[in-house]
């Protein structure tokens, strides 16, 4: 927990400093005409909003993982979870979804409508397959209350996969809307940003999943 906090604080501090040091040392009272830094972050509000949201989600998942680690170390009778095989397969499926989303994004960027459509469908289908796979993993671990109450490791597995799944569902809602616009004949140039943001979000969710998986496996 404290390690996470120190890491987050350091990371945030360095990032903030690199980004804004020159601006924060300006002397506004001298009333010189200053080069306005309006829109200096050369990107759209939606892009910044997404990065901020990913920061919030990162905080959420790192706190959950810290809680996992503390709960493990602070208690007696901790029993590790045997991760079902299907979870490995799910991980590959999610990676493929992320790849497909990237492909769709770059296809939109290069104006290739057909490819973009196929890649988008593939990304959606693979993501749904991932979610279905996670549900299978639940079945395999034992969906009964008895196991959830008996083993905190299993309870954590449920909570973490549910939370990650909900984030993915939110993403699916967004690409669902993008797909509707796409099918309705929207210009590719208007879809570029949405597709590019979706690709970033899918990579992010893949990274989060890999982190969760690694903690469950190795900690």
């Amino acid at each position: 927990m404290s390690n996470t906090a120190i890491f987050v604080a350091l990371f945030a501090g360095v990032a903030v400093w690199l980004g804004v040091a020159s601006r924060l040392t300006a002397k506004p009272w001298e009333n010189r005409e200053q080069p306005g830094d309006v829109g200096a972050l050369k990107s759209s509000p939606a892009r910044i909003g997404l990065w901020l949201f990913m920061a919030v989600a990162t905080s959420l998942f790192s706190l959950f993982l810290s809680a996992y680690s503390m709960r493990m170390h602070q208690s007696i009778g901790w029993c590790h979870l045997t991760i079902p095989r299907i979870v490995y397969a799910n991980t590959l499926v999610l990676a493929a979804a992320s790849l497909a989303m990237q492909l769709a994004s770059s296809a939109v960027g290069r104006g290739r409508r057909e490819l973009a459509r196929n890649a988008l469908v593939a990304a959606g289908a693979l993501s749904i397959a991932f979610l279905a796979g996670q549900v299978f993993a639940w079945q395999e671990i034992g969906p009964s209350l008895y196991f959830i109450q008996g083993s905190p490791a299993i309870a954590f597995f449920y909570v973490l996969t549910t939370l990650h799944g909900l984030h993915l569902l939110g993403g699916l809602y967004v690409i669902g809307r993008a797909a509707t616009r796409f099918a309705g004949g929207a210009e590719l140039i208007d879809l570029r940003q949405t597709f590019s943001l979706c690709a970033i979000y899918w990579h992010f969710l893949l990274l989060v999943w890999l982190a969760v998986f690694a903690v469950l496996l190795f900690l």
Partner: protein
Amino acid sequence: MAYVAIADRDAPIHHPHSFIERYIWSQDHKVIAIQYAIVAIFVGLVALVLSGLMRLQLGFPEQFHFVDPEHYYQFITMHGMIMVIYLLTALFLGGFGNYLIPLMCGARDMVFPYMNMLSFWVYLLAVIVLLASFFVPGGPTGAGWTLYPPQAVLTGTPGAGLGIKLMLISLAIFIVAFTMGGLNYVTTVLQARCRGMTLMRMPLSVWGIFMATILGLLAFPALFVSAVMMTLDGTLGTSFFMPAVYSMGQPLDHNGGSPLLFQHLFWFFGHPEVYIVALPAFGIVSDLLSTHARKNIFGYRMMVWAILAIGGLSFVVWAHHMYVSGMNPYFGFFFATTTLIIAVPTAIKVYNWVLTLWKGDIHLTVPMLFAIGFIFTFVHGGLTGLFLGNVTVDLPLSDTYFVVGHFHMVMGVSPILVVFGAIYHWYPKITGRMWNERLGQIHFWMTFLGTYAIYLPMHYLGILGVPRRYYALGNTEFLPQSVHTINAAITIAALVVAASVVIFLYNMIVSLWRGEKAPSNPWKATTLEWQTPDTPPAHGNWGPRLPEVHRWAYDYSVPGAPDDFIPQNVPVDPKLGSGRDHGVHH
């Protein structure tokens, strides 16, 4: 398609067409701000009534039979949670943040207006779920506002059935609402400033709200995590936080959970929360002092850096709330050190406020009275914080009224004084009317002296060893008679302060119709919100053209200038200096 900066786009972002779109499902930041403020103040009044009931019991034990021990704990819990989260956080960020950020930055609206609207309605849902717990069997939770397990979910604690669940669900909903609003505030500050409004030309109010929002975005997830895990412990019977417990001689199903883990998660949120409330207050009070003392804020850059430093440090002090939970002495040493370090940037801010007043042209308007009152209460509460930050001093004092006095002074009274000051300050812009000066002054003096009469004696009670959280003291041997007299006196003072709130509400509501029409810039302030073409600002804020900023927000009393203030959107005259160069010497 090249990206066009928001400041370079013209035309408002959306157009409301009907009454409902304009005032109910509104996407206008000003309407959303007022909606947020009204709900927050309403729920805050509920919490105020609860505190009055508790004081009746403490001041005159066994006189008021409707306050039994069970209710007392429910009142304490709801009072604390409502005041900290549903009133202060929502009012500073959802209320003032929403109103001031676009206006002070020169934007037409928030960058995601639809999400902003959703944020308010989800917040309202959180409040409804919270208040619903008053009406369920068993009533609201009485676990204390920190909701520590295991007692929060065990039978025997009031509201251990539905009450605690509604509380946790309400918190989770609140966090969703806050995240939607918070993404808006930060992105708007970063992306939607008008031409010339560099980061270092922003008024300190915006800096405070901006940093507080970032803290909230990173800290609220910790509360979310603990709320989710405790809900599961309470409903499904998991053992995240619940250790093996024997209840009435019977073992419960829980096993091996860690109550300390909850405390870490809770305070990892809980301490930044103090600054989520304090930083907007710091920012706003800086602007009030500078405007009403007709002087530039002393050490603007230092003020910004202090806000950033406090924000960063607030994430590494959380365990000072847990000294009595038992911890490794080195751990305690670390947290005591960081806690004392955070006093440095905070003290810098206090010095700068005082130095801003030094040789200023002080106008003792009502907002200024509240701002100066804040300096007193904040210094007072801050100094007792230094006592409690030290492990060895904290241990004997932690469970006494000393702590109650301390935190009410520093994060109850101080931010609320700023809230009052800010409402008086911006009321003419928000409503287009002036309030009654005399009633405002009466409100201030009753509040300021009254809160001192409440909280100053509590420090003395604490040093005598009067324990907090107790429903009644009974005939405890070591407590002198003066304790009971003081408790009665505190209760009377509390009722007087509560009455002053009635005066405030009367003033605010009646002035909506009876108040004088307000000029567009009654305080002769420099910041952009006072330069709007309409008062109150119309939809889209700025008419056909966005403003352009040429100077910082604090050009007061510039030598040679015709007026004693130069608004931010006035071009620079090379013949004039700036307030900063000469302001101190005239």
